[in-house]
């Protein structure tokens, strides 16, 4: 007797994708944080050392990566607020729409950052 294959239909659901985005954005931010702290910690070695890093970071590929981080932070924040509200308040319909709005607002914030930074 062969095992029944597990259904993956739920993976096409918008809210499953929202949960995945929340998880992956959190994981990426957690992995980025030590690097962020090490970069700021350069100030211990003097202002010039931090300035050298900031000059190095003032280039297009780094700005694009920073925009990605801004997106991750914003989407993790908004997705987290949605989860907190679901847990603390009676269920509200339209969660897929709210998850979509969170994604759009996060993309907008990252886009604004990129417009300012470039």
């Amino acid at each position, binding site marked *: 007797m062969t095992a029944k294959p597990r259904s993956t239909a739920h993976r096409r659901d918008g809210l499953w994708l929202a949960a995945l985005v929340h998880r992956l954005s*959190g994981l990426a931010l*957690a992995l980025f944080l030590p690097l962020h*702290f090490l970069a*700021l*910690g350069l*100030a211990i070695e003097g202002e010039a050392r931090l300035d050298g890093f900031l000059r190095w970071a003032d280039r297009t590929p780094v700005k694009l990566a920073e925009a990605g981080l801004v997106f991750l932070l914003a989407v993790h924040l908004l997705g987290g607020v949605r989860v907190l509200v679901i847990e603390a308040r009676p269920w509200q319909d339209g969660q897929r729409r709210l998850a979509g709005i969170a994604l759009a607002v996060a993309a907008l914030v990252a886009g604004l950052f990129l417009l300012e930074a470039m």
Partner: protein
Amino acid sequence: MSFRRYLIQRITAVLMAPLIVAHLALILWTSGQGLTAADILSRTRGSLGWGLFYGGFVALAAVHGAIGVRGVAREWSGLRDAALDALMWGFGAVLLGLGLRAVWAVIA
């Protein structure tokens, strides 16, 4: 996730939310100004307010991140409880140590 970790995860999230909004606002506000080390340090050096802001932010992020990483590892890695706890405490300690060092670097 144990109830205690679940609760701490939610409390740190609620406390961090306004700090993240402020952090994002500051990022957007300063991103077009060609930031230098002098710009950053003139704002932060000797500032108790920024020290408390960033110190609190680091502590909350270290706890929230460590619990979050433990939760993801539990579901995706198949590690046992003792290894998961070691990962959580170790990762949290690294985040807290490096984070407070960074705060010290820009405040002191």
